[in-house]
């Protein structure tokens, strides 16, 4: 017990020290918000995954859902997640990069104007605040249950550790810390899988016990179940989750995108995102597969599980040896801290760039906005801490976050896809489409009682797409100079040259220039197309095996 506490304390102290160390060279807004655009692809890979996976959208909540519903939860890791990462890496990141932006709402403004930027910003800031509060709540409860230490001091210590390096170091410190945390997460939490599989006789042992002896439904082991499944009907996973929510999440979530905007070149940004789908795929072995085996262990060892959210903590507490629990906690805390840190950084970036600089104080020096970024970070920390008791007592807020995500991601995906691939889409069309799609999501849930998140997202996407197209066709097209360089049809030859130069520098080869129609290839093992193809092949194999 004390050894676990000591290991956890040492880990938190090291994270604090490393965070301060990485913060020492942060001097302006570009450093603070975009890490000075200096991160190589493997840092991006680690940071994107560590951002994505935390207590909430990873170990504790996804692990709990895997215990409750089975292998279907792996569709996030084996199907739609990597699909979204790859598509975003291959198509969307380049447009953000060329637009020279700090935030996703900035891109929407460049393409569509002010209105949609403000709505999108406010929705995401609220989602971020709730997310940080929920992460702190889950982390505090987890440590309370495992180490038997008081809840509130734990929450304050977690906040102090992550807040300190985010406040001082911004995205630069965050990306470096996230890469370190990515490694600790992988090494610290992977042993659970092997110990557990040995206990239950491998994956075959799990299926033969649960299906053969207990008579459990075969759908507990299906990644894409039938359409009647109460939690995740297969076709709706493909339509709503894979095509809309996941791509919307990967391309529209400021924290995810911001890591890529901090890359040293477009090539690094793209490869970083595509490569992040590898740890994403492995994530299922860290917190999904163990939870599918957990019922067998709980019943054999007489471990009481009060609810699915508590299952992951109970498992590690009862399965792992004492010293290893401490290392595991370090891995798990890495997941939580990296997610909290990234969302904290993104929320402050949006507050400064999308709200403060636009509506309150314009045209000040770079140093002014740099300081404002730190004040915004501190403010987000304080507001999130104030929200923790609300999350603790009123579960309604989590429901509100889910509804907001469904309202935002479907319409966002529609207007983003049209922004890039349909030059005729214009400001009135996008605004009407975004608002109608969001309103339709509320109507679907409140009036028609649709509770499957994927269905809501899909239909809000479809409605938003239709309304944007219709209204755009009925109103004047956007001016050509306004959309130049940020649609697929743009002439971005000059930018391509710049990109190639970036890539050439980053891979230590010399570009001979676009005009001579020659492009220098990176080494074959760093070719994005090969990576994407190999990863998609692995996804297809996993789906064929578990689908």
């Amino acid at each position, binding site marked *: 017990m004390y050894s676990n506490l000591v290991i956890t304390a040492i880990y938190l102290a090291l994270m604090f020290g490393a965070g301060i160390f990485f913060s020492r060279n942060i001097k302006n807004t570009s450093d603070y918000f975009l890490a000075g655009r200096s991160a190589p692809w493997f840092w991006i890979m680690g940071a994107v995954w560590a951002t994505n996976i935390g207590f909430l959208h990873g170990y504790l909540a996804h692990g709990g859902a895997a*215990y*409750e*519903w*089975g292998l*279907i939860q792996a569709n996030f890791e084996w199907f739609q997640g990597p699909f979204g990462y790859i598509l975003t890496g291959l198509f969307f990141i380049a447009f953000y990069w060329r637009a020279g932006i700090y935030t996703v709402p900035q891109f929407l403004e460049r393409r569509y104007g002010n209105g949609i930027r403000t709505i999108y910003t406010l929705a995401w800031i609220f989602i971020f605040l709730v997310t940080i509060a929920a992460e702190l709540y889950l982390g505090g409860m987890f440590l309370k249950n495992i180490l038997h230490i008081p809840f509130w001091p734990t929450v304050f210590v977690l906040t102090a550790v992550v807040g300190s390096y985010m406040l001082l170091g911004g995205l630069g410190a965050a990306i470096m810390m996230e890469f370190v945390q990515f490694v600790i997460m992988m090494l610290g939490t992977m042993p659970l899988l092997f110990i557990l599989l040995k206990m239950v006789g491998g994956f075959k042992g799990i299926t033969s016990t*649960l299906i053969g002896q*207990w008579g*459990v*439904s*075969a*759908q*507990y082991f*299906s990644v894409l*179940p*039938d*359409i*009647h*499944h*109460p*939690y995740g009907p*297969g*076709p709706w996973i*493909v*339509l709503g989750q894979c*095509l809309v929510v996941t791509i919307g999440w990967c391309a529209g979530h400021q924290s995810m995108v911001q890591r890529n905007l901090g890359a040293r070149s477009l090539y690094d940004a793209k490869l970083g995102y595509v490569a992040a789908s590898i740890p994403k795929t492995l994530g299922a072995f860290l917190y999904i597969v163990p939870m599918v085996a957990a*019922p067998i262990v*709980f*019943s*054999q*060892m*007489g*471990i*009481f*599980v*009060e*609810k*699915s959210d508590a299952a992951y903590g109970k498992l590690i507490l009862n399965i792992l040896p004492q010293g290893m629990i401490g290392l595991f906690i370090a891995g798990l805390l890495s997941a939580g801290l990296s997610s909290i840190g990234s969302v904290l950084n993104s929320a402050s970036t949006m507050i400064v760039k999308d709200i403060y600089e636009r509506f309150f104080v314009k045209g000040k020096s770079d140093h002014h906005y740099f300081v404002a970024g730190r004040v915004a970070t501190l403010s987000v920390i304080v507001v999130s801490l104030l929200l923790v008791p609300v999350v603790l*007592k*009123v*579960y*309604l807020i989590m429901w509100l976050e889910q509804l907001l995500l469904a309202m935002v991601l479907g319409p966002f995906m529609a207007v983003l896809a049209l922004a890039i691939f349909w030059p005729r889409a214009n400001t009135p069309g996008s605004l009407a489409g975004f608002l109608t799609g969001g309103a339709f999501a509320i109507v679907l849930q409140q009036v028609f009682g649709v509770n499957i998140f994927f269905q809501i997202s899909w239909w809000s996407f479809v409605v938003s797409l239709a309304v944007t197209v219709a209204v755009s066709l009925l109103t004047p097209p956007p001016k050509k100079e306004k959309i130049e360089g940020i649609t*697929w*049809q743009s*002439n971005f*030859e000059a930018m*391509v040259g710049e990109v190639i130069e970036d890539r050439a520098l980053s891979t230590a*080869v*010399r570009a*001979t220039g*676009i005009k001579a*129609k*020659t*492009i*220098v*290839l990176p080494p074959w093992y760093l070719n994005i197309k090969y990576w994407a193809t190999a990863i998609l092949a692995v996804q297809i194999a996993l789906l064929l095996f578990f689908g």
Partner: protein
Amino acid sequence: MSRRPAFLLAVLVLAGAVAAQERFIDVRQAMADALTAAKTAAAKSDWAAAGSSVEAARTIWARDVKPLIVEGVKTNSDFREYADRIGEVEADLEAASSAAAAQDAAGLAAKINAAIWGISHHPRGFDVPPPRYSTWDWVFGLSIGIGFCVFAIWFGLYLRRSYYSRYPKAVFVRKRK
């Protein structure tokens, strides 16, 4: 009813339900702790302590846990799984009591484990009906699958064609040393 009182009522009802669920967790945890204590005592051959811990667990079951389940299932479907297992849990507790009296450590541990699992939350995914595919499901599923592939191929080709119509295909060369 206007929207605000309806909302407040919904929050109050939700808060009441949450409080009831917290109590239900606490009493089951107390019962599980007593049963685990019995198992630990039996492993040390302290049969008197093992027997009294099993009896303590049975008391908690009869006094706190079972009444909450019986009452809860009338208004909340979350209690259904526990109501369905009342008979099993009682049989396991009875068998655990007998095993403690007979000083059978292995039998006691097995029955205690079964009783604790009986009062634990079981995955809802266990009870999902086996896959069912009607003709309509096949049509719907295949339409989505095939439609998705056709769209992906068409869109990919469109992107490729539109790109190379603007920029002739580049000649790739290896790095010159």
